């Protein structure tokens, strides 16, 4: 499999007045097409910053980042928007669903933005097991159900790259396992690349590759020769 994502000397600084915080110190990593990658690290290690940069919602201070042949570091605002629209799906820790739209409508909204999706909103809702809650608003659903809607919304775009920021962070163990199961299915069934940021080491067991961050540096990159399926992990 070819590298679909590669970062070289990637650096990110946050400047707040005279205070400069370096969130990433010249990191290098790559991700192969169809890989399930887990970025692991404690709070403040730079993992979410890295994910946001990969997703094109955070700019790069210096270094290079390529997605396929696209030089992300050279893209302007509209280029990043097009990149997100065409290639990237996002799942957040706190779901970020539209509060005034039902579960089904949240998915339909994303479909309206990416009409070339191979699946209908109803199919996606069914795929995440929420056919009974399709008409419910986010405030009427549990965290796990909301996260499933967020997954359906992300998947409906049929993204090449699915980015997940602490997807199970706000969920209980069982629900979190179900969510990981869904992500893994998406990765295996459709051959799509998934990158998940987490501080839960157990999730790392389902990954093909684990990138460990600490204090803005990559501490370790390890390849899982035999990744487990979500149901095999002792959560």
């Amino acid at each position, binding site marked *: 499999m070819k590298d679909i994502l590669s970062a070289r000397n990637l650096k990110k600084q946050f400047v707040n007045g005279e205070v400069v915080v370096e969130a990433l110190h010249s990191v290098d990593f790559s991700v192969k097409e169809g890989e399930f990658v887990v970025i692991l690290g404690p709070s403040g290690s730079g993992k*979410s910053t890295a994910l*946001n940069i990969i*997703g094109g*919602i*955070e700019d790069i201070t210096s270094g290079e980042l390529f997605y396929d042949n696209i030089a992300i570091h050279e893209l302007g*605002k*509209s280029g990043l*928007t*097009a990149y*997100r*629209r*065409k290639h*990237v799906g*996002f799942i*957040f820790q*706190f*779901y*970020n*669903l*539209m*509060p*005034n*739209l*039902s579960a089904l*409508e949240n998915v339909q*909204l*994303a479909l*309206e*933005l*990416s009409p070339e999706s191979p699946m209908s909103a109803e199919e996606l809702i069914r795929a995440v097991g929420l056919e009974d809650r399709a*008409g419910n*608003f*986010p*405030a*009427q659903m549990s965290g796990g159900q909301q996260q499933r809607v967020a997954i359906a*919304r992300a998947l409906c*775009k049929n993204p090449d790259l699915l980015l997940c920021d602490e997807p199970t962070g706000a969920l209980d163990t069982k629900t979190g396992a179900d969510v990981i199961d869904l992500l893994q299915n998406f990765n295996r069934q459709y051959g799509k690349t998934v990158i998940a940021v987490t501080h839960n080491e157990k999730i790392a067991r389902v990954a093909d590759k684990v990138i460990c961050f600490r204090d803005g540096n990559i501490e370790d990159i390890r390849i899982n020769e035999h990744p487990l399926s979500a149901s095999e992990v002792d959560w």
Partner: protein
Amino acid sequence: MKMFFKNVLRTILKNKFSYIGVILILSMGIMVYVTMAEYLDGMQAAADLYYERTNFADVFAVVEQMPETDVADLQAIEGVKEAAGRLEGDVRWLTEDSSDSIVSIHLMGWEENAAVNRIYLWPEDSSPSGNEIYLSRAMAEAHGLEYGDTITVIAGGRLQDLVYSGDAATPECMSIVPDSSVEAPDYTTYDMAAMEKGALEKLLGREHVVNHIGLTLQPGVTFSDIKYNIEAKLREYGLYDLSARKNNAGFYAVQSEIDSMRNIQKIIPTIFMAVSIFLLYVMLKKMIDKDRTLIGMMKAFGATNREIISVYIMQGFIIGLLGGILPIPAAEAAGNYLLVDDALYYNLPLLEDFTFSVSRIASGIGISVFSGVLSILIAMLDVLRINPADSMKSAVPGGFNIAIPPRLATILNTRQKISLRSIFRAPLRNLIIAIAIAFPFSMIVVCSCFSEGIVDTLEGQYTLVETGDLKVTLAEFADKSRAEGAIRSLSGVTGGEAMAEYDIRITAGGRSGYSSLKVVEPNSECRKIMDNRGKFYEPPEDGILMNAHAARKLGIQAGDVIEINSFRLTGEKGKAGVPVLGLVEESSGGCCYISPDGLRRYFAVPEASNVLSLIVEDGAKAEVRQQLAGMKNVLFVSDNEQMAALMVEALSTLVVLMQGLAFFSVVAGAVMIYHIVNISIIERQNEFGTLMVLGMSSREIDEVVTFEQTINLVVGILLALPMIKFLSGAVVSAVETSGISFNINITPQYYLLAFAVILPVFAITIRSILRLIRRIVLTEVLKGRE
């Protein structure tokens, strides 16, 4: 709760512009309220004090003449407390420019210790004697006179020099016109003056008689209780007019203005305050909703509702206090300006300083604080009802689950569909924005329509009704054919008519009142009869047409037969039954109309005239005035063009007030639109952030917001339509108390004007909101819970 309060304070500082907006809106409501209260309370207090110090009469009578010794007999009438008579009469003043201008003075006999209707004099403790004359301050100033200057008057065909020695005022003359043919006071050409009683009697050649009588009544006695007894007593002296205080010209002019303003005060500031409170509630509710989680957390920690409420009440109290205190200096200044301006117009002396009232200021601040606290309490109701666990979650939307119709769905693009869905799901949020648009829109339409409508109506009186150029009021009735001959003899006059106006007493169905009967030629060139919708009427010969306002006061309807009694038409005790053929809803006035043939039919009097209406060649007015100045029987000449301007000036306070309200509405509207849209967008930052992450470009987000807000604009304008109807009806009925009736004709240009004002405000708001959205930091907004 100290730290919780600190957190709320910091939130206020963080959202300082929103809070400044809330305070500003509240301030505007209070400013309008206090300004009008200051002005109206001041006017009323000044007028009341004036009435008290002059012992203003409860009943006024005008007779041909009455021996002064008979006046005391009036006190014998049951219910009469005091009676006083006074000789009054008009004289011509030969001013320096009298070759082309006619100035007349209404002289009143001054008597020390007059029981009723005392004349107020300046300098205080001075009194006129011999050939001294005390003029109204407005007239003296208009002619640049100083104490000691000599003026020359013509009385009884003789020239007499008088020395201007002081100023005089009386409540009866707060709005003085020579007779009912002149509709607006012009203090440069006609006003009151006072002379010592004996000196005036000599000047007018009428000794020991009075012609104006004032009566005060015993407590609990009303005019209607004693009206018929007084009429019976005075009829033998040639009674022209008998009226209660409320119908006295001076009192009526001031009181009707105060009353119509009071009506407007009830409507406009109430609307302002209602809108202020509503918006305050909306803004605070939005702000408290943002604290939903915080409140839930405080509850989870064991804080009681009372403890939480107390923190927010303090917030409402501070907002209310600031909103109440900040506008007070400007409101007091504006109210005082209106008061002084109006008092000057009405010759109403401000005998005491009425500019500061603790209770008025306290009530303004009190209303503001009450509004702030009440808004907070209502805004908190929902939040306080929920349990801590629920408060940690977002609220379930309460909108309508309306699907976009398929046909519409094919027309709309994705962004427009998102906008539409957002509107359906949060109808209240969008309704509030629409109301924020509708309020200033309707106020601009009504206030601008009102100002132009009333000016058009009053000007129309002199372009469509009084179509002559100059109107001449004669001192005495003259033979009609001689009057017509005089018109023909005037050089520079191309046409004109000799008309007559008679003071009449009308009795119908047990009620009686005083009016005037205008004798108008059919197809008259100079005087039309027109209602406030622009329909013209011809003077009838088999009855009369009557002003609808005057008819309503006497309970008269079209088809009724009324009794007319007039010293000149029927003699002292005679009366004639005349049918009322129709009622005319005129924009002003209160008289009746008949044709010369009709007059002959019902009243056996020779044809006479006391008013001439002249059509003058272009540029020949001065020449005509010069000729009229040489005619002894000419009392007053009014230029219809000037009269229109004076009529407009008479209502200038109201017009300025309405324009001021329109301005305030725009400012309040701009603040409202900006803040409500702003708050609604801020609370949706997460939503927009998500759309951006899903791949929507800034331009597409702009389209979503612009489409949504454009729909709000359209709904706002549609909502404004019923508001305009309500407001215009309320304002028209409020103004009717001042004797002016008009229709607000809302033409498309007013909607365009309102649209032209609102659109830039709206566009600037949307533009700044879009900039705000572009500044959204995705990583920040998507980190938090929605």
